[in-house]
């Protein structure tokens, strides 16, 4: 480059001074800086950070006394797992250069490492905070895990012991489970995409719950489960997802987004399906409770009945009348039929089912058989007997109603009123009439004039209804 030489001072010492244009000077400085500071490491705090077009990032790096401008172009900052933000303490690697347009000197950053913690941890924290803000971890949006899923999907690597361990746990809890396994790489750059595809495929195939499982590892090893891609996929999944990544102390983004986090894959197998023998025990317990309550109610009915029987009306059964006894009988046999059918059916059905379970999977043989076949059935029969008495009680109440009604209403029910032909007084016992005497029998639609043919002296009592 040719430089102009102008004499502006008389002083000969500087007569030879070279005069730059601004551009020339900036260019020269830039060249000097770039060759002298071609590979620097500088540590400081980020401030005034902003992205240009979401690509290049500009910020100041400062310490207590000084600051310097930094630019990191897209090709380099896109490689960072985390995002640069104000307040971060970074160690920058790059070279010093000049932005000639403004004559500002700056560092062109090629890499930036968080000081004090790893880049991945920082990235993890940032994504976690971002998703949390978006409401991805809200308990209210979590789908319910079914307690008895028909089909369980597991996304894992079939290479490790994880699947084997999970199957042993499942076999112990619920022998007849249905599992659909999808084999994926749980580590490496394709891992995230593979897991997302697996979620898609399982949803499409149609299952009830998905478990994403992986054994323990470092933060780097588990990185596939800390991506935004996985978070979005789990969040938008139509099926409940259980995340079981690493050991108890490992937390991943997928754990937070999933509907349930299991501390380990084996624990996921524990929570994904109910324990069959426990479930059976629970049902047995509920049936037992029902029996107790119904029995208690029957006992109360029985007591009420006993009270009623002591009353006059039951002490003098002749006042009840045949029709009512018939109603008793009809009620009794109807109840007997119904209750017997119900109890028989219930008892047999349950006994059969408990037995089936018994044959297939040997759990607690003695208890299972005892419950339905013996114990329950005997108690059900007891229930039936008791309830019979209670129906009698009900009939007693009907009787009370009858008494309130007029004799004419009684006649309408099919009773007859027998009167002395002359006095029109009601005849209450056979001693009041003589053989050959005329009597009036009053029915609902008229009167029958009748003659006494004979008298049979029989004490009316409870036996009478036996003949009917």
């Amino acid at each position, binding site marked *: 480059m040719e430089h102009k030489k102008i004499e502006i001072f008389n002083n000969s010492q500087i007569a030879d001074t070279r005069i730059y244009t601004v551009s020339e000077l900036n260019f020269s400085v830039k060249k000097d800086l770039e060759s002298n500071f071609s590979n620097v490491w500088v540590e400081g705090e980020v401030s005034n950070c902003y992205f240009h077009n979401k690509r290049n990032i500009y910020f100041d790096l400062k310490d207590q006394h000084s600051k310097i401008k930094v630019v990191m172009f897209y090709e380099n900052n896109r490689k960072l797992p985390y995002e640069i933000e104000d307040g971060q303490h970074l160690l920058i690697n790059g070279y010093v250069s000049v932005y000639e347009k403004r004559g500002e000197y700056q560092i062109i950053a090629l890499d930036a490492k968080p000081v004090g913690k790893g880049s991945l941890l920082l990235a993890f924290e940032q994504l976690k905070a971002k998703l949390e803000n978006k409401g991805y971890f809200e308990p209210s949006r979590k789908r319910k895990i079914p307690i008895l899923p028909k089909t369980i999907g597991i996304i894992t690597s*079939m290479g490790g012991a994880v699947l084997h361990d999970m199957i042993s746990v499942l076999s112990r809890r619920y022998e007849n489970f249905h599992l659909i396994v999808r*084999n994926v790489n749980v580590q490496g750059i394709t891992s995230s995409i593979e897991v997302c595809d697996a979620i898609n495929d399982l949803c499409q195939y149609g299952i009830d719950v998905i478990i994403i499982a992986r054994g323990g590892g470092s933060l780097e090893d588990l990185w596939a489960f800390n991506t935004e891609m996985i978070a979005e996929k789990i969040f938008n999944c139509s099926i409940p997802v259980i995340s079981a990544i690493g050991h108890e102390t490992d937390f991943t983004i997928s754990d937070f987004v999933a509907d349930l986090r299991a501390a380990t894959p084996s624990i996921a197998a524990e929570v994904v399906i109910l324990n069959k023998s426990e479930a059976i025990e*629970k049902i047995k317990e*509920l049936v037992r409770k*029902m029996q107790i309550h119904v029995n208690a109610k029957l006992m109360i009915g029985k007591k009420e009945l006993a009270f009623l029987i002591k009353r006059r009306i039951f002490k003098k059964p002749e006042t009840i009348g045949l029709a009512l006894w018939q109603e008793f009988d009809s009620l009794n046999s109807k109840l007997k039929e119904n209750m017997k059918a*119900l109890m028989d059916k219930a008892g047999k059905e349950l006994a059969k*089912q408990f037995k089936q379970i018994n044959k297939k999977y040997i759990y607690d043989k003695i208890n299972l058989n005892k419950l339905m076949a013996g114990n329950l059935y005997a108690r059900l029969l007891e229930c039936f007997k008791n309830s019979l008495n209670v129906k009698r009680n009900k009939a007693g109440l009907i009787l009370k109603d009858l008494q309130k009604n007029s004799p004419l209403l009684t006649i309408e029910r099919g009773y007859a009123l027998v009167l002395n032909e002359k006095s029109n007084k009601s005849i209450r016992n056979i001693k009041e009439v003589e053989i050959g005497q005329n009597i009036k029998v009053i029915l609902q639609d008229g009167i029958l004039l009748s003659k006494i043919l004979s008298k049979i002296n029989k004490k009316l009592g409870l036996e009478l209804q036996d003949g009917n």
Partner: protein
Amino acid sequence: MEIEKLSFEDALLKLEAIVKELEDESISLETSIDKFELGVRLSSHCLKKLNEAERKIEELTRTEDGKLITKELKLED
């Protein structure tokens, strides 16, 4: 209520609700017998559901033309 169509969970929930209702001393004997019968049917349905599934372990893959297929998975012990 069509018990046959209930899921295990729903049937179990209803069964638990019935037990609760039976605890109420003010309901009539008739009602409690009805509820008892329903409860027996529900518990029977629950047991049926528990035995419904068949033990199966399958692997899900995609064929080259993009079809989803499952094949039985043999695991070495």
